[in-house]
């Protein structure tokens, strides 16, 4: 079942044509990756799908209403003087969900022990995890993650990958943008590659690699580190 669909979508900011006829579909319960370098138009697509911008042309379909979406955007939008739990309680009240959900969400991102810590005192990785906790608080139908592991250490990133896969298991559609190709191979069921506002390739990431004979063996220090430390969020 189609969860998100864009058909021939265009968007310009002044003279700058950011999207030039973008077309793709995502299906319910899959992890869908939008790949591309900075400035390719990934964030613009998320902004259109989350109804922050309107597209100039084309058709956009999202199967979830605004409050059925979970969002992790470029800026975290957290309240810096409030602690982790208080930040979630605000949204718990907005969505009218039980308090236990905030506790569960904090536990699921490994922040239960830091629930009384003010956001301004959190590390970048912890903030990122708190944003994910806020995004999944109301069990959204679609979760938008804009560069979810950018600037995170490998261990924290692995923890977030694990969490994203768990969410997929519960039926949530996950739409993520990244410029980290390896992340996409490890995580995504399907990807589209965006370059200069145009989709240049799409499909299963492993199949794409095979298609271009791009499979290679590398000395993966990240994997060694994760193996040595046991992975997971601490």
């Amino acid at each position, binding site marked *: 079942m189609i969860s998100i669909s864009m058909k021939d979508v265009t968007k310009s900011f002044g003279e700058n044509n950011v999207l030039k006829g973008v077309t793709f579909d995502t299906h319910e319960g899959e992890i869908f990756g939008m790949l591309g370098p900075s400035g390719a138009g990934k964030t613009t697509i998320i902004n259109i799908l*989350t*109804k*922050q911008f309107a597209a100039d042309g084309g058709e956009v379909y999202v199967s979830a209403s*605004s*409050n059925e*979406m979970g*969002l992790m*955007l470029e*800026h*975290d*939008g*957290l*309240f*810096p*003087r*409030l602690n982790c739990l*208080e930040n979630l*309680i*605000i*949204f718990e*009240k*907005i*969505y*009218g969900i039980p308090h236990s959900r905030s506790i569960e969400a904090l536990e699921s991102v490994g922040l239960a022990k830091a629930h009384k810590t*003010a956001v301004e005192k959190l590390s970048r990785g912890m903030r990122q995890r708190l944003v994910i906790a*806020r995004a999944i608080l109301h069990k959204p139908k679609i979760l938008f993650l804009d560069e979810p592991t950018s600037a995170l250490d490998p261990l924290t990133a692995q923890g977030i990958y694990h969490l994203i896969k768990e969410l997929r298991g519960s039926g949530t559609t996950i739409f993520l943008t990244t410029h980290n190709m390896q992340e996409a191979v490890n995580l995504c069921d399907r990807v589209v590659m965006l370059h200069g506002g145009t989709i240049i390739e799409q499909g299963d990431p492993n199949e794409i690699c095979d298609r271009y004979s791009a499979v290679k063996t590398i000395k993966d220090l990240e994997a060694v580190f994760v193996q040595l430390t046991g992975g997971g969020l601490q």
Partner: protein
Amino acid sequence: MKHVNAIFYKQLKDTIKNPAVLMQFIIFPLLAFVLTFLMNMERMTNDMLEALPYGTDVDMVLANMNASMPNMTTMQATVFAGMGLIPIVASIIAEDIEKKSLRFLSMAGIRPTAYLVGIAGVIMFVSLFTSAAFSLIAGFTGLDFIIFTAAMMSGVAGSIVLGATFGIMTRNQQAAAGITMPIALILGFGPIMAQMNPSIARFLHVVYTQQLNVVADYLTIGGVDTPLWQSFGIMWANVALLGLLFVLVFRRKWSIE
């Protein structure tokens, strides 16, 4: 209602944890206290009395001085409601915009009115304590206390809505402070200037801070021509107009962003 409740919760927690904002609610009554009681020291009064020309009715001078003390307090109250609150509210909202928190609230379904009512609820709630402190210093009791509190809350409401409008218009806290301060100075000190100049008083007649001061004069020094109902009517007409302006600016800002 749950949306207002969420914003009220957020703002109450944030206000308690923000010393810069909390200080604004304390500093004005503190200043009124200092002006009223510390300036009324016996030594200072004696010095002033000694400087009076021979033959002056000292008892009358003392009576006038004592009568004007509550007025000094209510002038501070007007400055608090007019000048103190506008930058506070603008800064709260500008921070929510700058940190992109307002965007997340809006995308979760928070409407402009729920956001404003939630923020205003907290500011009015905390201002009630500030207003009570002013009443205590001015010695208002009974009906005077109720009238003064009602007038203060009307003035506070006007400043909240105006501050919120400026907060929405600006992109960050620094810009909010820059844009609100001149307006806040005029609204806060305008009524004091109006006491010295009838032309300014006529010009400011339709402004809520002037009417707050008129109600305060009614309770302290008397001799006020404007009936109470008219003063309250003008203040709430200000609130309604500014509220309309806030909703328009909020919607326009959102459609642009």
